[in-house]
């Protein structure tokens, strides 16, 4: 069974997206990067990100990740902010009752995007 199936697929993404986005918006370490953005569009992007991190179907490439975050890197986005997002993601899954072993797998998938997101 794939990671995505073990987590519960699209239903799991839908359950997680509001909780995750709320955590990010209230996280003083990173919420400045989200001020002034269209919340509805941002929520759709969070959903795409969660689908990818959950090992689900996605067509995002490293180049997309670089392009999509370049303006934030210019504003100072760095490893500490990436770590904060991964932490919020873990806390979201914990809240939904996901096991630590699966959370570690999700974090590992998210980790594969670090260099592209940070433009390294």
């Amino acid at each position: 069974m794939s990671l995505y199936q073990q987590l519960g697929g699209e239903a799991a993404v839908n359950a997680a997206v509001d909780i995750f986005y709320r955590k990010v918006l209230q996280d003083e370490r990173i919420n400045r990067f989200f001020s002034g953005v269209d919340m509805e569009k941002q929520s759709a992007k969070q959903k795409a990100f969660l689908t990818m991190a959950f090992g689900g179907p996605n067509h995002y490439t490293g180049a997309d990740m670089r392009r999509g975050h370049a303006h934030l890197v210019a504003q100072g986005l760095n490893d500490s902010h990436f770590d904060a997002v991964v932490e919020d993601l873990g806390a979201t899954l914990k809240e939904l009752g996901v096991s630590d072993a699966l959370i570690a797998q999700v974090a590992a998938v998210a980790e594969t995007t670090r260099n592209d997101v940070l433009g390294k």
Partner: protein
Amino acid sequence: MTILRFQGQDFVYEAPRTVLESLAEHGVEIPSGCRAGVCQSCLMRCLEGEVPAGAQEGLKPALVAQGYFLACRARPSSDLTVALADAEGLRQRAHVLAVESLNQEIVALRLKPERPLDYRAGQYLRLYRQADLSRCYSLASVPTLDDWLELHIRRIPEGRVSAWVHDQLRVGAQVEIGDSLGQCFYTPGQEEQTLLLLGTGSGLAPLYGIVRDALAQGHRGPIWLYHGSFTVEGLYHQTALQRLAGQFPNFHYVPCVDRAGPEALALNARVGTVLEAAVSDHRVFAHHRVFLCGHPDMVKDARLKIFLGGASMAEIHADPFLPSGT
């Protein structure tokens, strides 16, 4: 053989392709992104035929009700006529039935379209002064209750369309309107849910329609309408809304003004913003269905506060169009 019809052309569809893939093979490029049913870039609308199973997963109920679907997820089993989601549709003529003053700066424009307009209370449409000069206005009317279309139009300083409506449009005049647009409307189901509607100024228009539509469709849960303005003079429809609240015990009308005074007291209006009043009354919004319309700053603040207060993003409805300025 299954046929896909798009912009008046017929294309042969072969399974198991998606609508997106099939059109691309025929040289028709539809905007798309993730191709996995997530980003909704390839949103299309079904005009005729049956929306393929699974092609509406993750879409808001409002979009589902109107036949919107994701082209990257759609594998039709019978003929389908489809359109791009942002196509504004056909324009048509409408006759002016009334131009009534609602307060010092807002009029109600009542129109009779030549063809019945297919719309939901809370949607908006484009009103044309001339081919290249138009503005979007929300509908305050309800298709099942009103024989006319009603728009609430605030006079914008130097406004080229609003001034024309206020100063020049008279009963019997002919105007052009576009198709109904927008996803800010009531859908039946979850009749016990709390509905929360926040509006400022002429942003009351769609909310007035949504409230009456929800009540007419038998919504049983509490319905809270907050209408805000600087002063009592900026409010309107108080009598109709108070009457509605008397008629339906589950409907609550809360007028809000920035400045206290005898008029505010007489109306039992709250002093403060609509968001402040709603937060103090509700505190937590976890099970609310929310509709926002009016000043862009109010919509932005309310969306953030109410989302952080527990409402699901999918339950917060607001149409994105902004006043044009003139």
